[in-house]
């Protein structure tokens, strides 16, 4: 092949450009630590990095949500523990008032219990990070307050039953609050039996009085219609003193199915039996209806509502204080109400512990997934610095060779020998 001078200079330029391009690429990779500088370096890798980084950022947010949620539920737990301490003191006092030796000091016990009531009321209005712990989702004001005449505790906001939910993982939401209705409200428990020999399509009704926080009575009515063997359709309604419904009657009835052999309630709407939350639009009526104790057997239908629905814990304690101050030992039903509240509080403490564990477990899982994702991103994006440094050294050697060869060739021609 005939070699012209242009060929030599072009080859030199081309080789030099190629070597410098490689050196530049390697220097950039080492300096940035990334082997993908732009999408065209690896279109598929870029797509993966974008999606993995998005997932990683989401996980970071979930992790932050868990931290915030954990802080809130921890505050909730601490507050409920404080309430439980007060309730324990109250139960001790209530036990002491039965001692005849204390019959002359009932007023003092009343003062002590009143002090505990004020403490509990204060705790019920506790805040965490600007949110009322037991206020549901209505933060417009403190949820509970004594009325002007100091005769009753009222709910100050429309709703204390709202659930505060946070996202702790993809498609997983966790409620982090204990609504006021769950903690301070009461449960209307329905018990008794339904006659399994009842004719199809026949209906019977049971009713009881429930009360709002102001002590106003309402009638809770439940209707049971047998639709098939062991199967009943249940509807319910809440009526005020003028017999006017204050509750939007569910358009779809609850389908209750009993076990044909044991007679126990097996499912409600094909789900395991659970409590039903009943809340009137006015917000005054807000409680949980628990029909899980109903059973079916051959005989007369005797379905009854149980539990004293007259007052919540605050107004129960007010009644106790009033009786003690008037020199009377509290009614046993009131004492039983305090005891029931204590049991429910312990249940709620267990529930908050479960939420804490759930958050903690999810956080551990997220941390593991984050590590895995970071590894995947690193494998896709990060440069092997040692390998790149070796390549850079080789390319720099090659570059020097090109310079040397160019210097040797370009300076020599036939002219040097003429």
């Amino acid at each position: 092949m005939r070699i012209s001078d242009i060929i030599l200079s072009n080859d030199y330029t081309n080789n030099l450009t190629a070597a410098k391009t490689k050196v530049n690429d390697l220097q950039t990779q080492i300096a940035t630590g990334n082997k993908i500088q732009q999408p065209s370096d690896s279109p598929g890798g870029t797509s993966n990095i974008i999606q993995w980084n998005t997932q990683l950022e989401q996980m970071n947010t979930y992790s932050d949500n868990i931290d915030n949620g954990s802080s809130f539920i921890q505050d909730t737990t601490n507050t409920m523990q404080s309430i439980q301490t007060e309730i324990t003191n109250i139960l001790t006092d209530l036990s002491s008032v039965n001692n005849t030796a204390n019959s002359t000091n009932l007023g003092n016990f009343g003062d002590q219990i009143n002090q505990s009531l004020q403490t509990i009321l204060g705790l019920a209005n506790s805040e965490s990070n600007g949110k009322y712990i037991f206020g549901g989702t209505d933060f417009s004001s403190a949820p509970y307050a004594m009325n002007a005449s100091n005769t009753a505790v009222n709910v100050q906001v429309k709703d204390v039953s709202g659930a505060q939910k946070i996202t702790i993982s993809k498609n997983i939401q966790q409620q982090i609050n204990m609504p006021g209705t769950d903690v301070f409200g009461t449960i209307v428990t329905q018990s008794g039996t339904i006659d399994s020999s009842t004719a199809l399509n026949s209906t019977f009704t049971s009713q009881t009085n429930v009360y709002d926080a102001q002590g106003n009575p309402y009638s809770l009515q439940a209707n049971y219609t047998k639709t098939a063997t062991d199967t009943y359709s249940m509807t319910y309604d809440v009526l005020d003193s003028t017999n006017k419904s204050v509750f939007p009657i569910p358009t779809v009835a609850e389908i209750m199915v009993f076990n044909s052999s044991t007679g126990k309630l097996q499912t409600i709407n094909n789900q395991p039996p659970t409590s039903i939350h009943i809340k009137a639009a006015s917000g005054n009526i807000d409680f949980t209806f628990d029909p899980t104790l109903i059973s079916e057997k051959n005989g007369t239908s005797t379905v009854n509502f149980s539990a004293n629905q007259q007052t919540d814990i605050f107004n129960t304690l007010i009644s106790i204080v009033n009786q003690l101050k008037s020199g009377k030992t509290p009614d046993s039903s009131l004492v039983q109400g305090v005891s029931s509240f204590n049991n429910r509080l312990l249940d709620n403490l267990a529930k908050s512990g479960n939420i804490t564990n759930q958050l903690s477990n999810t956080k551990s899982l997220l941390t593991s997934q984050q590590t895995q994702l970071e590894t995947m991103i690193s494998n896709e994006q990060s440069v092997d610095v040692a390998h790149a440094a070796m390549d850079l050294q080789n390319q720099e050697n090659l570059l020097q060779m090109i310079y040397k060869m160019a210097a040797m060739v370009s300076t020599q021609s036939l002219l040097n020998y003429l």
Partner: protein
Amino acid sequence: MSLSRTFDIAQSGLTVYQEALDVTSHNIANASNSDYSRQRAVLTTAPSTQNANLIWGNGTQMQEIQRVRDTLTDQMVRDNNQKYSDNNEHDIILGNIQSLFSEPSNNGLSNTITAFYNSWQQLSVTPNSTALRNNVIQAAQSLSNQVQNINSGMNSIKSDVLNNANSDVTTLNNDLQQIQSLNQQIFAAQNAGQQPNDLMDSRDKLIDEVSNLANINVTYDSGGSAVISVGGSFAVDRSSSSQFSASLVNGKIVIKNSNGTSLSGLSGGELNALTDIYNNKISAYQTSFDQVVNQIMNGVNSQTSAGYTTTNPPQSGINFFDNYNKGVLSINQQVLNDPNMIAASGDGTAGNSDIAVNIGGLINQKDTNGNTVVDNYATLVSQVGSDKQYASNTANSYQLLLNQLQTQKSSYSGVSVDEEMTNVLQYQRAYEASAKIMTIADQMVETLINIVQ
């Protein structure tokens, strides 16, 4: 036979070798000119004469100054030129487009999108927090700004592409006019028995330039004039040259010839790259990008319009974004004025964050094609990257091929200084020898004169 004949023969040598040295000097002077084709002095013996039954040589003469050029290699260079410049232009402009997205990096739009959705997640934990509501607004403003930057960047690139197309067409027209002029000069020179080698080099250089701009077809007529078509349309011969134009028709760049007919056969060169990027690539990218932004806006608005603000009284039916129009994603001014107008609540209470939770979850919601917002965005970025990578790789392969062809062309037509210096020595020696003959002939004449005296 006379002694004057010896003088004549020696003189032919002196003349021819001086001319040959001129040719060599011309070659050496153009040794670094890549557009130059080396020339070769072709010497031949002068016509002989017959005398006394013998044929006597009359020295030497210059038959021609030959231009050393391989037309087949020229054609291959031009074919690859148009493919290389087409892909190289794609590579350059697509590189500019992909840089608009700043991916993969912390400054990329994907991070901004994620931060926007995450700000809703954070708000869902403490929905009554004014700071977190402002955080949502700031994240939305970042998103809006970045969307606007990308759109204005793409529009700016489109504008540059259109300007480049007009500039290229102007260059094309100028080149074609010069080629026509050179065709005429070469024809005239050849008719006068001259060898217009340098004019032909100039014309070949211009033809190479035109092949960078568009796919061309080059033939030569009987008069040696180059007849060129551009994109299948007549461009130039000796008698005329076409004037092309670039214009926007229905938002697309159309290259037309003098008759106003669009170049349907345009398939290579920078002009093909510019029209393809303007008419197809950027439009497709913008459509995909608009889909991503609309997916974000519609998803968020469908949630907030069903939610409640935390104003007193709570309001419903409030969109978070006003609209997405002409590349601008506008946030509802009411929201910008008052963060409580962010409808994050599902029931009107300040502590309810159902809407915020739902919006935070939209980042994982799939559209009818089964893709999330980030999936669609990543696909768009990946598509731009793939197009750029393809153009870059193809341009590099044509560059290699072009380098080989240039080497081949230079091997044939390029000047070798060593070779030329050898010729210089050769011609110099021949010139010296001819001069010596002249001196000897002169001495012989002097000897004869002395005999006569």
